[in-house]
């Protein structure tokens, strides 16, 4: 299994003498289920505690135990947190993949490996550090069955020593990781120390990579996007969550269960929420719709296969006009695809999910911070416009750990939309559920249980008139569909606006979601390495706001960068912009399931620019 999109290198290169500070990529190759996740988190946190910006990306198989897994930590003094293709330090712990792992390295990279693997025989243009893990694990005094896990903490100690990470930070990270398990903390600390001491005594530093203290992470948090989303939903006043387990979305709800149990149980011991594991995605979204119809802020989280299953119900919610918040933590499709790899491949199918004319509101968070804030945006928009809202996260954002500023407390009150209460009905006498009273396309609804004889209406997926009565009349149908479309047009002024970077360049870039981090870095590369200035618009929602159209109007060429094969966002844009502008759009697509990296964007854009 390839861990990277780099073609294996057979060239020999020269080992340089330069010193590279706080700018490197470390890849740890282990076996799934070996406990390496804790070790990798400790290594990443240690660097973070040194004040150096980091990102961590877990590349794992669709398997519980026994298959290869890789974890990449990037440290970047400049704050670049996109995936970097080139690996500077490989920590090779998996005998099965070690040979291939070594072959894909660039010349001059270093390898910290398990001594019996004898990797130094594979190539002669790398820097090798051998560590006898089994022997060291035995000295730590762990029971035999724990030694496999302990080995992983030994490499943390050895790598920390080689990179000159202050061991006190390693210790601190271990204590945080095992905060609730004192015995495990002691054992892991001893293992890290053994690795550290061994490296100090036996490994001669020959690579140029060092971690030095800086102050770029002070006050920052580390969290994965799914946890951030869970927290956001809790603070957004969500009351009903229904779900069906699917990678990579399961952890969103699982984390939410933890948070809600902790913070959303009243003084009487009773929950102010209900979380239900449904029998499948159809039932999950059906429950969301039922709950929202009855007035709850309800949501589900899923991935592509679940989205496909939710198509029929999405059409029901769209046409009956029921709010629903659906998190789509995108993974690689079609079909089962690559369940543990990332993509932005559901943009088109989600936009028009269901049969008939449907257009769904989508939000595109690019960061853990936006996973938090867009949770409320999603609920507010869903209830404001009485329609499904999809939050288009992805596996890279949802399941990986990201550095972030702390999340701000929500600054706007919860918007429950147009709901008529008993008191309202007493004033107005009655209502027509699907009448456009305010000119924004959005009708007033009542909730079941409202104690007024005129409160009830008949919600139905079949044709209906303004009063929610069954109707097959052509004029009723047409008028209703046009009004629903008006809601979508109104929503353009309410959805999150795009983020603009740059200003006066001729070339524009449009991207969204996690592709953002590669674009930020790529723009710097284009500017520094190719003297190519670009403006950048990060789209944050569908429908597109006016700024998106303006941006395309203002640029001669606009590169739409995304992580799918067919340029799905570019297609969506082409449907929305003036026909004359469509030739300006060019697609840069990236589809192999690994998070997009800056150099791939830079190289392709430069080539397309004919430079």
């Amino acid at each position, binding site marked *: 299994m390839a861990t990277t999109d780099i073609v294996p290198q057979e060239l020999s290169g020269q080992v340089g003498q330069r010193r590279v500070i706080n700018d490197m990529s470390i890849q740890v190759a282990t076996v799934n289920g070996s406990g390496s996740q804790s070790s990798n988190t400790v290594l990443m946190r240690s660097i973070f505690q040194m004040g150096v910006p980091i990102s961590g990306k877990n590349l794992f198989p669709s398997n519980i135990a026994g298959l290869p897994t890789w974890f990449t930590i990037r440290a970047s003094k400049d704050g670049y947190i996109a995936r970097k293709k080139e690996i500077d330090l490989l920590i090779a712990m998996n005998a099965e993949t070690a040979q291939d792992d070594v072959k894909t390295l660039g010349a001059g990279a270093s390898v910290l490996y398990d001594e019996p693997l004898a990797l130094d025989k594979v190539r002669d243009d790398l820097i090798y550090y051998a560590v006898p893990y089994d022997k060291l694990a035995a000295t730590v005094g762990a029971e035999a069955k724990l030694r496999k896990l302990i080995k992983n903490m030994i490499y943390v100690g050895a790598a920390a020593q080689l990179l000159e990470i202050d061991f006190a930070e390693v210790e601190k990270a271990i204590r945080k990781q095992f905060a609730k398990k004192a015995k495990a903390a002691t054992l892991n600390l001893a293992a890290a120390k053994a690795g550290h001491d061994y490296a100090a005594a036996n490994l001669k530093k020959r690579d140029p990579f060092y971690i030095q203290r800086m102050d770029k992470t002070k006050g920052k*948090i*580390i*969290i994965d996007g799914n946890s951030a989303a869970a*927290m956001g939903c*809790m*603070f957004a*006043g*969500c*009351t*009903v969550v*229904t779900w069906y387990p699917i990678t990579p979305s399961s952890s969103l709800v699982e984390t939410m269960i933890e*948070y809600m149990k902790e*913070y*959303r149980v*009243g003084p*009487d*011991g*009773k*929950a*102010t*929420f*209900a979380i*239900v594991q*449904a*029998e499948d995605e*159809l*039932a999950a*979204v*059906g*429950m969301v*719709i*039922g*709950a*929202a*119809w*009855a*007035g*709850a*802020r*309800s949501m589900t989280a899923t991935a592509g296969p679940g989205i496909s299953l939710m198509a*029929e119900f999405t059409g*029901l919610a769209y046409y*009956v006009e029921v709010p629903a918040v659906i998190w789509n933590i995108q993974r690689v499709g079609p079909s089962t695809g690559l369940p543990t790899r990332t993509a932005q491949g559901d943009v088109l199918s989600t936009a028009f999910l269901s049969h008939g004319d449907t257009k769904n509101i989508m939000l595109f968070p690019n960061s853990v911070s936006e996973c938090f804030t867009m949770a409320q945006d999603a609920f507010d928009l869903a209830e404001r416009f009485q329609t499904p809202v999809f939050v288009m996260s992805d596996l890279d954002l949802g399941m990986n750990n990201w550095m972030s500023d*702390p999340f701000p*407390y929500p600054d706007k009150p919860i918007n429950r939309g147009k709901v008529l209460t008993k008191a309202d009905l007493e004033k107005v006498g009655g209502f027509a559920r699907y009448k456009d009273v305010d000119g924004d396309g959005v009708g007033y609804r*009542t*909730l*079941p*249980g*409202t*104690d007024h*004889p005129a*409160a*009830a*209406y*008949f*919600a*139905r*997926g079949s044709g209906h008139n303004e009063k929610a009565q*069954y109707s097959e009349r052509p004029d009723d149908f047409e008028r209703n569909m046009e009004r629903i479309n008006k809601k979508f047009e109104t929503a353009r002024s309410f959805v999150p606006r795009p983020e603009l970077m740059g200003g006066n360049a001729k070339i524009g870039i449009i991207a969204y979601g996690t592709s953002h981090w590669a674009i930020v870095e790529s723009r710097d590369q284009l500017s520094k390495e190719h003297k190519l200035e670009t403006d950048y618009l990060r789209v944050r929602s569908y429908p597109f706001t006016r700024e998106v159209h303006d941006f395309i109007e203002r640029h001669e060429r606009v590169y739409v960068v995304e992580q799918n094969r067919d340029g799905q966002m570019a297609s969506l844009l082409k449907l929305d912009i003036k026909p004359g502008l469509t030739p300006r759009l060019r697609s840069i697509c990236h589809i192999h399931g690994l998070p997009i990296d800056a150099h791939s964007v830079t190289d392709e854009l430069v080539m397309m620019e004919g430079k």
Partner: protein
Amino acid sequence: MGNTPTNTPATTPTPPATPKINRIGLQVVDYRGGKTTLCAGCGHNAISERIIDAMYEMGVQPERVAKFSGIGCSSKSPAYFMNRSHSFNSVHGRMPSVATGAILANRNLIALGVTGDGDTVSIGAGQFVHLMRRNLPIIYIIEDNGCYGLTKGQFSATADLGSTLKSGVVNDLPPVDTCAMAIQLGATFVGRSFSGDKRQLHTMLKAAIAHNGTVMLDVVSPCVTFNDHEGSTKSYKYMQAHDEPLQEISFVPSFEEINVDYDHGTTLEVTMHDGSSLRLRKLEQEYDPTDKIQAVTRLMESHAKGEVLTGVFYINEKAPSFIDMLNVTDEPLATLPESVTRPSREVLAKCMEELQ
């Protein structure tokens, strides 16, 4: 002749008839719905009538009721009763999930699901299974006619082996017994009735309203247009010949004084969740409707004998409902204020600190 005294002097005008009202002051008309568009004589219309009567007699506030249905003739029927209740006509076979969500949002709603044999047993089999497992508080009525009426009479999965379509096509697959399934899966009130048995159905519906948990009622409801012919086992004629009641059912609601005594030897009394009393006068001495195993066995026997067994097959008034198990707050989740649903600044600060 002319001087014969009469009890009703013709000169006294009759006082205008005071409309009959129920215990919450509503008339039957307050429980009515729109005009039916189903075929004349359709069993579903009779079921709608029984629902109206039962809800009226039980004095249920119509605004507290939420009606749910899927797709099919049966699923249209919620439009034909209780216009003052909210209703959700959802997608084919997936009504259970919509109803589940609504009850999660507002536990005070009285949920009434109306579905058909196609809706429940074929496309909706998955959701049916899990609804039964959860014991959600809902009255789930299958208007069972053994065929797909709205698509012109194809067999459904409750059609009996050997029964025929109008065209003469013979059904060669065994039927699903929804009652046996429901009992096995965890529903806590399971029975079968016949749309033509006014008294039995009416009484069972009233008891259903008093129950806390899933009530699964399979009501054989002949399709006069596509499945009422010779060779059908879901026709009026067939039902009249083969209906085998398990008990004589009577019901005393909690708000009425119990003043009729009964023979404890032949009648089983079940005290319902709300204090009402369901009385089952046994027509089969040994039958115990609180015994799941016996219930399923008896149903299997009825198939072997070729009888259509009706009555209350299983009842358990002690099992917690899904809402009880979730331990949700007493107020509807739907309308909890922001002060309750949004944790404080301090909570966010604590969460942030833990992540640093």
